[in-house]
């Protein structure tokens, strides 16, 4: 129920007078309501719950746990994909 899945905003449009977005989930595209994240731009990633975007994912914060691991000085040999 509290499933929140990250998806990429492709484009915004209006439907039944609501702000919607075409969101890409690794190739699957769904219409998602963007009313509560109106500032989301194409290319942004949003957290989607039951067809609603609740939050825009912050790329800088997303990398923070990997900075912490780097500080632990053991990350050099890992292949961590860039966020």
């Amino acid at each position, binding site marked *: *129920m*509290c*499933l*929140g*899945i*990250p998806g*990429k905003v492709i484009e915004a449009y209006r439907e*039944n*007078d*609501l702000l919607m977005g075409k969101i890409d*989930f*690794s190739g699957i595209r769904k219409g998602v*309501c963007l*009313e*509560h*994240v*109106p500032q989301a731009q194409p290319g942004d*990633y949003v*957290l989607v*719950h*039951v*067809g*609603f975007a*609740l*939050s825009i*994912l*912050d*790329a800088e*914060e*997303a990398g*923070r*746990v*990997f900075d*912490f*691991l780097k500080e*632990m000085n*053991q*990350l050099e040999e*890992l292949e*961590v*994909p860039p*966020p």
Partner: protein
Amino acid sequence: MKYVDEYRNGDAARQLADAIARTVTRPWTIMEVCGGQTHTIVKYGIDRVLPPQVELVHGPGCPVCVTSLETIDRAHAIAALPEVTFCSFGDMLRVPGSRGDLLQLKAQGSDVRVIYSPLDAVNLAAANPTRQVVFFAIGFETTAPPNGMAVWTARKRRLTNFSVLVSHVLVPPMIEALLEAPDNRVQAILGPGHVCTVMGCGEYEPLARRYGVPIVVTGFELLDLLEGVLRTVQQLEAGRAEVENQYARAVRPEGNPASRQLIDDVFEVCDRKWRGIGLVPRSGFKLRSEYRDYDAERIFAVDNIQTQESSVCISGQVLKGLRKPHDCPAFGKQCTPQMPLGTTMVSAEGACAAYFAYGRHLETQPARRELALQNGKACD
């Protein structure tokens, strides 16, 4: 998948697990609130790779599990009405009421529909003006903005055949009730990541202060849970009791102001009965009186609800973290996902379902202390 795969890195997970082991000097009991967090813990065997002094207790953060039996029976009674098209999230369909479930009603000819988004129910109502479309609006605060928007937009579109059966539950009052209980053993909490994307973290400050428990708002992936536990034990070992935000890529301290405004416009706080736990004051949302024309509980006067729970099921104790699924004599025997006795086995987020899904009912001896990884990569 971006923002998912990188949080399942096995080597990073081992490093975090090692850091936890180096930090811990004495026993601690930590509760994760959300069913989704429980699933990740069981899936990767996080509870088994942590040092033995750290005990993870599974919280009642499964809205399907805690929807009261009266509400379930009322939903079934409404769904059985011939003029009603009853719409629900999929995971509610097999929740056992006193007599059967929604899926059985559908098999008997009732018009029960599974929907992904509450807006789907609104569109169904607009497209079928001769049907009474009722949407089963359950969930925590995370689902309140989507459910609220459905009602709000139905009113804006002047639909007269749409209504919602509301049974929202709120996390902070539930945490308070658990921490107040005389048999409480929980010393710290992994807070609800997606609830906090909506509500922010502020509601948890008074709880951390009043009860002296660290509350680390945590995400749902492997690295999120491990980092959440690490930050929690760091606080516990240092004698601190603060609110921290591990899930900062999704959670802002103030939450989502537009969502919170919509919640205020549509809902108000009320007392709520939690299945297996009992009445928790001011722990739910109901529709404001301005939206009474959309309130299915008012529109469909279904009386004589007489509830009957299974005498064997210990869901209530599992939800409060007092028992684990394998403590139940029926677990994996009379009670399975195919034939659930109670909500914690039926729900995708229930602790019993999690334990069963990852084979805990098959074990005869404790598993090796290793993360459930293959070739250094976390399994899907």
